[in-house]
């Protein structure tokens, strides 16, 4: 297959979810119109659309009704009355939620820009749920001390994504729909472009740009039970790592407490925000024993560990007793139909349960990747623990690790982070281009090299060709990651996981694909994606093995305490011949205002 012509743009964005679309649109608004956005699926299929519960901002539209307690009804705050929320409180909640691993300069920016970005979304046409007086409705959410989740029923992400995509189209953003980025071109610490596959035709294209941004999302598909879409295979993370860019905090994988039992499909935290209870096989609201103050609205890592403990101690429900109950029967049909309609549909379709009448079976599900490609607050990627910037390479959204979420992310902060930092990256890239950035030379033969890789995957005739099955390898990877690198970890299991991942990497060399056609070859994509899963899973496990403490979502049963003296630092991993080479980066902390404290709920 001959290589098609090289394509050039001022800016190339990979990923068309909230982060990528904000960046592309913003760059255009700042005067850099030559932007191309690649997406391996149609932009509206991006996983941002799956977010359900809300997007956080201290708008101060609602407050708890006086005297009704922390799970009582909410009411609109009349004009002129005392606010109940503040940027400071949002900041503190996020810092505490991150178990003090979040960089506080980045968090401060995010909470500060939050109200304005919500209003911007609303002015752009987002149909939010409303209070009687017409203001945006807010609900409670785990780990937040005030009700600040701005929502659109229970499909907030869907509404935000469609809105920002429409606005991007209005501003003339050019989308390369169903183009798959295969390689990042970085040389001498300067990013020069990408190599991409036009999925429909199978043609490879070298694409040069002055600035490249990844908004490629998370990596939940390394696990068996995940809320993540099948597309979330951490491509951006793996490609950058292979290109010499480090990854940061990969060991911090958030397990969401309420994935549908057996499938992992997300049942929004809003279920608990609206008053739902978690119960074990004796009908007990077990959160009383783990977080007596916040109960079901403790942060996700805490709740998932509570659930996992209940399961491991024999109090689970379901065929293999690995589930628990999410009980919303006391909320009433009206409230469920108005605020949680999608969740009800999901439980009906996938569990055969009507949450109006029965509790839904749930279990912890791999949900969010706090780790990713490290960057500063303007989205510019850094090459090492010292913060040396990579010229021309930017990230935002779930693929980025800035880090606003630290060791654990609060619900509703992800939609916020993706929007705020996507926009900032767009501005930074526009400034970079307008400041005189030039297209940099790219090496010859990049596409040809990838061509060979593709042909090799199709070559049954080679030594051991076809001896292994891609899907079998993927399944075994997910099994070991779930068992040995899940909610609870220890040295023995992590070591086993590392061995398994490396063995699977070896076996993958003998895997071949059946589909030999170049036209829309999803068999090929599946193989490349599985290779990516193997690449970054090694980093997750190695980082987790090295971190001998428990913090946020990373819990070691052999090191159950948080160890600020030795471990108040980010893990930075570079690719090396015999595995990830780890170094450590300090955390930005305002020691006067938000010094580390014990994290109790």
């Amino acid at each position: 297959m001959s290589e098609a012509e090289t394509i050039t743009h001022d800016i190339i964005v990979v990923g068309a979810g909230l982060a990528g679309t904000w960046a592309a649109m913003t760059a255009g608004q700042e005067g850099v119109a030559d932007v191309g956005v690649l997406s391996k699926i149609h932009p509206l299929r991006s996983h941002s659309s799956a977010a359900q519960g809300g997007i956080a901002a201290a708008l101060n539209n609602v407050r708890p009704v006086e005297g009704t307690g922390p799970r009582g009804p909410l009411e609109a705050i009349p004009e002129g009355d005392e606010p109940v929320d503040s940027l400071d409180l949002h900041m503190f909640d996020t810092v505490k939620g991150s178990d003090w691993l979040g960089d506080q300069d980045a968090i401060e920016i995010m909470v500060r820009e939050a109200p304005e970005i919500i209003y911007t979304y609303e002015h752009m046409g987002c149909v939010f749920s409303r209070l009687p007086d017409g203001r945006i409705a807010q609900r409670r959410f785990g780990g937040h001390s005030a009700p600040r989740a701005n929502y659109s029923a229970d499909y907030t992400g869907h509404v935000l994504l469609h809105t920002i995509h429409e606005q991007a189209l209005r501003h003339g953003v050019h989308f390369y729909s169903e183009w798959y980025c295969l390689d990042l071109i970085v040389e001498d610490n300067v990013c020069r472009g990408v190599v991409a596959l036009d999925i429909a035709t199978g043609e490879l294209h070298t694409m040069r740009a002055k600035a490249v941004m990844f908004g490629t999302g998370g990596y939940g598909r390394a696990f068996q039970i995940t809320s993540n879409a099948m597309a979330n295979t951490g491509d951006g993370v793996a490609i950058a790592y292979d290109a010499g860019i480090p990854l940061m905090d990969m060991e911090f994988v958030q397990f969401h407490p309420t994935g549908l039992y057996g499938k992992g499909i997300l049942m929004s935290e809003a279920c608990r925000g609206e008053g739902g209870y978690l119960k074990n096989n004796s009908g007990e609201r077990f959160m009383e024993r783990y977080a007596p103050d916040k109960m079901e609205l403790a942060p996700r890592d805490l709740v998932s560990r509570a659930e996992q403990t209940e399961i491991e101690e024999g109090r689970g429900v379901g065929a293999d007793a690995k589930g628990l109950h999410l009980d919303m029967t006391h909320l009433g049909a009206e409230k469920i139909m108005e605020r949680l309609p999608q969740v009800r549909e999901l439980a009906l379709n996938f569990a055969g349960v009507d949450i109006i009448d029965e509790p839904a079976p749930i279990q912890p599900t791999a949900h969010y990747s706090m780790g990713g490609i490290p960057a500063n607050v303007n989205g510019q990627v850094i090459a090492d623990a010292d913060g040396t910037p990579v010229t021309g390479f930017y990230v935002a959204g779930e693929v980025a690790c800035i880090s606003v979420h630290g060791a654990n992310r609060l619900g509703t902060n992800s939609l916020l982070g993706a929007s705020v930092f996507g926009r900032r990256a767009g501005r930074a890239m526009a400034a970079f281009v307008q400041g005189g950035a030039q297209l940099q030379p790219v090496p010859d033969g990049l596409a040809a090299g990838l061509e060979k890789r593709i042909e090799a995957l199709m070559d049954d005739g080679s030594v051991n060709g076809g001896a292994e099955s891609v899907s079998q390898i993927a399944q075994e990877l997910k099994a070991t990651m779930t068992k040995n690198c899940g909610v609870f970890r220890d040295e023995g299991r992590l070591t086993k996981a590392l061995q398994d991942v490396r063995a699977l990497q070896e076996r993958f060399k003998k895997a071949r694909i059946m589909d030999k056609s170049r036209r829309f070859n999803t068999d090929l994509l599946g193989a490349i994606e599985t290779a990516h899963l193997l690449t970054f899973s090694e980093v997750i496990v190695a980082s987790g093995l090295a971190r001998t403490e428990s913090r946020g979502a990373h819990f070691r049963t052999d090191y159950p305490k948080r160890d600020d003296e030795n471990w108040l630092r980010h893990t930075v991993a570079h690719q090396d011949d015999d595995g990830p080479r780890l170094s450590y980066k300090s955390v930005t902390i305002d020691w006067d205002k938000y010094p580390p404290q014990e994290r109790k709920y």
Partner: protein
Amino acid sequence: MTSVNGRSRQVLVRIQRFNPDHDEKPYLQAFEVEAKPGMTLLDTLIEIKEEQDGSVTFRRSCRHAICGSCAMNVNGTNILVCHEPLRKHVDRRGRVTIRPLPYLPIIKDLVVDRTSFWEQYLRVKPWLVPPDDVPEKEFRVSPEEVTALHNAEKCIMCGACYSACQVIALNKQYIGPHALLKAFLRVLDPRDSSPGERLADLDGADGVFRCHTIFNCIDACPKELNPTQAIETLRKLVQKRLAFEEARQERQTTLTRPVSLVRD
């Protein structure tokens, strides 16, 4: 078809195959699958691809009916395969037949070319056109005004309705139920400043009067939306365009004031 203790049985899954690079025309290929409890049609396709034939090609991502990737034609009806149980679609002879969405060019197997679908979406200008006067905070939109949008914001652009529409089958110039539902969302939104222009555009040769109220769109919609009702509403508004425009201008003078004050 055998039923073993009622819990699992063999199903014949017929999938329409077509690779324009080497096939003269589409053909059905049959795969035998053991139907397990709780298996969806998407699970079935994935299993066939992973264990029997890696070249079977289809779009999918979220597997919980929000991304809109996996609309296909199963036993003659357009559905989203990710949230449909396999057993519901097995016929009396133990077979299920999966074809790509009809009336659209086939790229490969179950993957169709949606160019005309997205062109119509763009054509109705799906973005909101806000008024010049933008408040510091949010516009005040009442819960009733949100309800009147009849869930049109829930549309995931899956294409099941578009590809089930008999008018579309014969006339790709017709705007189509998906785009008309989006247009409805914007026309009815009190924050949109261009209802008159939108309605004028929808009044054209390929607009709201092209719908023949066949109702295939309602049958096909996996989100239980009602494009026909939206189209009928738009027809009425098209005929009262000037009055509607005036009412919108009036409403926009109060968009920054709390809703309860407006009612007084």
